[in-house]
């Protein structure tokens, strides 16, 4: 059988089959949906849009292609949902415009109408994203123009157009990186292909399988697997606020609607107060709901006042998540921890400094410092705890360097001591550490880095004394630059300001880090910051809470 001219009745049947075929495949298309928002509703949206179009077509009695097209366009516009639904409505709006006055159409006119649809669809967007339904529509319409010249028979013509549409769909991952990443084709494009498939099957008088065989089924799983991987990576089971993934549909019943009229906005609002990840889509007969909530029963009760519930599914997401994460954790803990290539042992006083050192890469931080030096044994234990083949020790105090060297000799591992004398030196050394370099290279680089930084410390004197020409009274504050006392005054801030003036070289230095001790107040820090900004306007100031005892402030200048 050859069909040279397509009449309205045939076209209407094609539309109905296309819509039907889309309904059957909506779930599979949902599973493909990763762009622009991976909420898995493209199929649902397209289906609701197309169904609305098909319903209009069903209601019109005519054999005029233009009339059928008009009602399809009208139904699609009214029922358009989601991005893909709106695009679909535009494609057929342009299509119907082109066939408006035609009672029957030839393949050439069909091709022209497809082109017109694409033009209309592209007009409605500022920035068309290629690799989507737009691309599939465009490329198949372009091919259709020349195909119409080869084929006067509508069946042959549509067969060829469909082939091109499928080829275009296959190329979408090349155009849209996110599709490639997840390993799927575009969902909207797939929806359009599904509609074309329906068109063709109707012309040929063929039955279509409920599931399109062209797609490999693993796509479904792929999308789900990706979803689960993300959930594990980024979430703790305790982070789940709403524990039940609840999905259901309500089939409206008239007598119930009389009592409680359905208002989508109000219903959505009511649900959103009880949960998140909310999706409410409805047409005249049905509403589909997806919601994560703590009270699935309440959601169901609410919905039931509009009609009867169908296709219910409730899952406990906490259980699911615990079992996924649990599986992973138990398999991890079975293995004994292998030795790392490098470990770094450092010494700190103050919880804040400990955290800073850890954040810079220290594997083990021992509490200690001025007046509370850790023993050789403490350091040896820490070296073992670092669980590494090569261990670098940063003593951060000149009184601990010796103990660290002794511990290094005792240890079985390869241990080097980078003799840092202050916390800022230790931090600079940590920054110079590169895990892909050898132990010797790291030792050298870290020693050099430690020399680059200037350290200033503010503390108080415990007794009267005279050191290096500076008279110090008990209770006075002292400024110490790299171990040398540079200033002393009974006022803490005066001492600090003098220390900074002595220490900072405006031509060389760029960054000053202030580590606030446990005896320093925020007001003091602000005063110092203002002082630095006033005197050295190009210096960058960083402030950290070190919570160290003894030293009100530690300054690092680079």
């Amino acid at each position, binding site marked *: 059988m050859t069909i040279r001219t397509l009449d309205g009745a045939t076209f209407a049947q094609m539309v109905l089959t296309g819509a039907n075929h889309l309904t059957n495949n909506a779930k599979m298309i949902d599973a493909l949906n990763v762009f*622009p*928002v991976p*909420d898995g509703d493209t199929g649902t949206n397209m289906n609701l849009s197309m169904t609305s179009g098909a319903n209009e077509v069903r209601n019109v009695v005519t054999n005029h292609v233009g009339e059928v097209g008009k009602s399809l366009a009208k139904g699609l*516009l*009214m029922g*358009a*949902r*989601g*991005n893909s*639904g*709106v*695009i679909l*409505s*535009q494609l057929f*709006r*342009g299509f119907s*415009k082109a066939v408006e006055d035609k009672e029957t159409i030839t393949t050439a006119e069909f091709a022209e109408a497809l082109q*017109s649809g694409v*033009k*209309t669809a592209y*007009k*409605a*967007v*500022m*920035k068309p*994203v290629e690799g989507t339904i*737009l691309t599939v529509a465009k490329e198949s319409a372009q091919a259709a123009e020349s195909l119409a010249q080869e084929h006067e028979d509508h069946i042959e013509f549509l067969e060829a157009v469909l082939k091109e549409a499928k080829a275009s769909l296959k190329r979408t991952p090349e155009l849209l990186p996110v599709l490639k990443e997840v390993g799927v084709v575009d969902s909207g494009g797939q929806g359009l292909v599904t509609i074309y498939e329906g068109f063709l099957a109707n012309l040929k008088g063929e039955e279509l399988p409920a599931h399109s065989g062209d797609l490999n089924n693993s796509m479904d799983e792929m999308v789900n697997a990706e979803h689960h991987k993300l959930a594990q990576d980024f979430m703790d089971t305790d982070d789940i606020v709403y524990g039940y993934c609840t999905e259901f549909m309500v089939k409206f019943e008239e007598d119930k609607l009389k009592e409680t009229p359905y208002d989508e906005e109000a219903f959505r609002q009511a649900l959103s107060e009880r949960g998140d990840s909310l999706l409410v889509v409805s047409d005249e007969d049905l509403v589909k709901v997806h919601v994560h909530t703590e009270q699935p029963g309440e959601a169901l009760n609410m919905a039931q006042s509009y009609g009867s519930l169908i296709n219910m599914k409730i899952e406990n997401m906490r259980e699911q998540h615990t079992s996924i994460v649990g599986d992973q954790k138990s398999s991890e803990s079975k293995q004994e921890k292998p030795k790392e290539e490098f470990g770094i042992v450092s010494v700190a006083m103050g919880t804040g400094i400990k955290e800073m050192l850890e*954040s810079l890469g220290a594997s083990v931080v021992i509490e200690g410092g001025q007046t509370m030096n850790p023993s050789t044994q403490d350091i040896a234990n820490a070296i073992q705890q670092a669980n590494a083949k090569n261990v670098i020790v940063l003593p951060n105090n000149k009184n601990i360097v010796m103990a660290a060297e002794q511990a290094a000799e005792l240890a079985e591992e390869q241990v080097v001591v980078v003799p840092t004398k202050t916390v800022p030196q230790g931090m600079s050394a940590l920054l110079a550490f590169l895990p892909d370099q050898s132990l010797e290279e790291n030792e050298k680089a870290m020693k050099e880095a430690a020399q680059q930084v200037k350290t200033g410390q503010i503390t108080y004197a415990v007794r009267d004394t005279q050191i290096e020409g500076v008279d110090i009274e008990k209770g006075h504050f002292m400024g110490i630059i790299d171990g040398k006392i540079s200033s002393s005054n009974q006022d803490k801030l005066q001492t600090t300001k003098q220390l900074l003036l002595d220490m900072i070289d405006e031509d060389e230095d760029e960054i000053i880090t202030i580590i606030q001790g446990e005896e320093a107040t925020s007001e003091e820090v602000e005063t110092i910051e203002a002082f630095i900004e006033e005197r050295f306007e190009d210096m960058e100031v960083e402030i950290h809470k070190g919570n160290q005892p003894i030293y009100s402030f530690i300054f690092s200048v680079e």
Partner: protein
Amino acid sequence: MSIDLNTNYGHVTITNEVISTVAGGAAVECYGIVGMASKNQIKDGLADILRKENFSKGVVVRQEDGQVHIDMYIIVSYGTKISEVAHNVQSQVKYTLDKTVGLSVDSVNVYIHGVQVAND
């Protein structure tokens, strides 16, 4: 005005300029939008459609009591279902901001400032 996020490693400050540019970029990728409009048409002249660098003029980021609200002024294409286009903009802007900036938006208000009629 800006948005501050505290992370384990420190502090991130994101200015409203960034938020409005991201929001505007996400919106114009939506189907059915032919442009962003300036919220202040008299001041910014009659040229309705903003260019990319001016998106922020069509996007207002407001912070009230720790909540973030976004107002967007857009121009849609004639013949599309306006409510649906607006809804797509809302969900895409919310999603994109959450994904790229880590910012959870409490509301995205869309003002349709014009309809572009194309000849067809």
